[in-house]
């Protein structure tokens, strides 16, 4: 096949992939919208549609990720365009796994996860370049897959924990079960949700620790320096420290009720900063980052 023909074929495949990605983004958006009506009406059926919608979307999204992997001939998390898609997929998959495993029968966190995933997809589609570039020398390491997969698994768990914590806070304040109103309709078990968020962070915390360790080991292999106080490294340490504070706050009786949920939300914000905000910060303040390839 001639060069031109090969490049045209790749452009055609990329066009198909983009279409699929738009469909995925729209499906996430639809799940989010249904979730919004579920919140307004409290109808159980709408809640089940949110979860069902997310199952369908994640199935299509899995196909998209396989497509991209085959197309690029490498793992699909090199550029920010790809990692945003990977983030949306892993957050939704983690939510659906938790939902199926813990059988809460509560669909509200799915509404939040759908919103976050839709946001990630549209941010990727509208602002990033979908070009498939080969792996640059800096990323050619056995640590690459481990580091990224585990870091994003931790992010996914933190997204679900955040969604569960928000559910807990919103329902506790707006629809207390004792009122017998909408809270009862949602079958809100405040105590359970409070525990779920904690258990999720117990899973995410060692994962984030591994992501930081593997990143340090990788940096030691690449540059002989395991830590450089690069903005991304520092923000991952901030996120880890905030979750460490969260876990310790659970052991302080006076902090358990109010400080812990606030810390969980702060941890999520720090996680978003680590993933996206740090690149904006680096651009805004002109601070060089060794993770510039992830922008």
């Amino acid at each position: 096949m001639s060069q031109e023909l090969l490049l045209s074929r790749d452009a055609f495949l990329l066009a198909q992939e983009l279409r699929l990605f738009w469909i995925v983004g729209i499906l996430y958006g639809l799940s989010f919208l249904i979730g919004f009506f579920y919140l307004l009406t409290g109808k159980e059926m709408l809640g089940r549609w949110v979860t069902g919608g997310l199952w369908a979307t994640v199935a299509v999204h899995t196909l998209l990720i396989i497509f991209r992997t085959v197309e690029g001939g490498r793992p699909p998390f090199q550029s920010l365009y790809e990692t945003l898609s990977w983030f949306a997929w892993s957050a939704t998959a983690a939510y659906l796994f938790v939902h199926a495993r813990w059988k809460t029968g509560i669909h509200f966190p799915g509404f939040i996860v759908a919103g976050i995933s839709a946001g990630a997809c549209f941010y990727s589609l509208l602002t990033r370049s979908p070009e498939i570039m080969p792996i640059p020398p800096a990323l050619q390491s056995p640590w690459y897959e481990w580091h990224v997969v585990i870091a994003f698994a931790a992010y996914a768990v933190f997204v679900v924990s955040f969604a569960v914590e928000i559910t807990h806070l919103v329902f506790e304040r707006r629809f207390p079960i004792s009122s017998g109103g909408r809270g009862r309709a949602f079958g809100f078990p405040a105590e359970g949700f409070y525990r779920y968020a904690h258990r999720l962070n117990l899973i995410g915390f060692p994962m984030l620790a591994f992501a930081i360790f593997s990143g340090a080991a990788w940096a030691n292999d690449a540059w002989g320096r395991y830590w450089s106080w690069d903005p991304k490294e520092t923000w991952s340490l901030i996120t880890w420290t905030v979750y460490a504070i969260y876990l310790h706050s659970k052991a302080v009786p006076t902090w358990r009720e109010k400080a812990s949920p606030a810390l969980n939300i702060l941890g999520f914000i720090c996680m978003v900063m680590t993933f996206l905000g740090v690149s904006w910060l680096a651009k805004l303040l002109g601070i060089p980052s060794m993770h510039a390839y992830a922008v």
Partner: protein
Amino acid sequence: MPFSPRKTLSSLKTSIWLLAAMCVFFVLGTIFPQGSELKDYMEAGGKFVPLVKWLSLLNIFTSPLFLILSGLLSINLLVCIYDRWRAMKRRPAYIPEEQFFLNPKVIEMPAPEDALLLRARGMRFKEKYSEGGIHVLEKGLPYYWLSWIYHLGIVVAILGFLGTALFAFEEEITLYKGKPVKISLYSPDTRWNKLKKALDINPPKEKKDKEYQVSLLSFETEYNQALKVDYPKEPLTRLAMGLGFKSVMADEKPEETYAPRMWLTRLSIKPPVRKELEGALWVNHPYRMGALTLYQMGFEQDVTLLVDGKTMKIKSMEPFQVKGIKGDLITGMVKAGKVYKKDGTVESFTPFFELKHTGEDGTKKEPGRLVQGKPQKFLGKRFLFKRMEEASVLSYRVDPGVTFISISVWLLFAGLLLRSLGYWGRIQFVSRNGKTYALLSTRGLLANGEKIMARLKGQ
């Protein structure tokens, strides 16, 4: 209550506040450009100058305040670890009877003591904790030891950081063909040696027995041909493309899509005692020889140009001026070496680079591409790219802290993982007046208290 420094230092709340204060420093470290000079910061229009100066915000991670805070956190951690160690050593054998019956989680079991002990097979019977109708059984890895282990891991990591801060040093070398460079695994500039020098204790001297001689044999670059597409920036056009109203087109200039694949350095090293050896290294694949490790950091390209017949020596990607052309000229990276094409073929290509011009008013232009050996007329001048010499930029580092960090990583990760995801369960039976009562405690995500209870109840 009277103030007790020891109690305050070992309290959980102190740990939390110290961690929170560390976070504030971390955040500041990502806002202020670390390692820059105060003068440059002021010239760039930096704000809060007195505060920046007073708190050393441009070198925050070596500032006295940060070091004091790190020291306090380390002391807090050490005191906590010591206290926990003592607490675990004198851990009560079992919950005393009067406290046991006050616990709302105590349940009456539907079976006699003997049957319960039989059903609890698989659990460790803690004989020394059991007496007078009280039995304690355990299963899984004790969470309190795991928690202690990962806190110990943090202490070992801090020792590693201290080792790095005091003894580590790093140097960069630029290797040209035919110009060997001597490097030493001893540096008088480590913080430790500087401290010794300042205190005049055994001042450091150069050590010839730690010197290596490194020579460049070759530096090779390789590229991959990639797909560059004509993709719009406007969101609506992107949506139109996504919905199929517009198609994605491949870029028509395939040579512009050469993405770096590999920077490979082949070198020879003469160690202090052994004979000369040859080796190769590339990014993520350092070259190790005894205590020496060399890392591929980058490269330098020295370009020889002829401008209207006059020879000019410039460095790629660094601005230069040409008489008669207002403003600055700069070259892109000189691409040279081999390219792995999409059709599976590998081709060597003639080196080339893009020339860029920035006018005095800041306007940017890209006059075009210069291919080695092919004269081109740009901005009214005749340019010829004559030759290029590439140098490999390597670094080497000596860091005794890494060993401690590696140990700490294992302690921390294994402890955290087993503590969070693992399984631990302890059950205490108390038999009184012909009835048996049980209290079950579990830790870890895999611990299923309901399952243990169901088995004990014979369900």
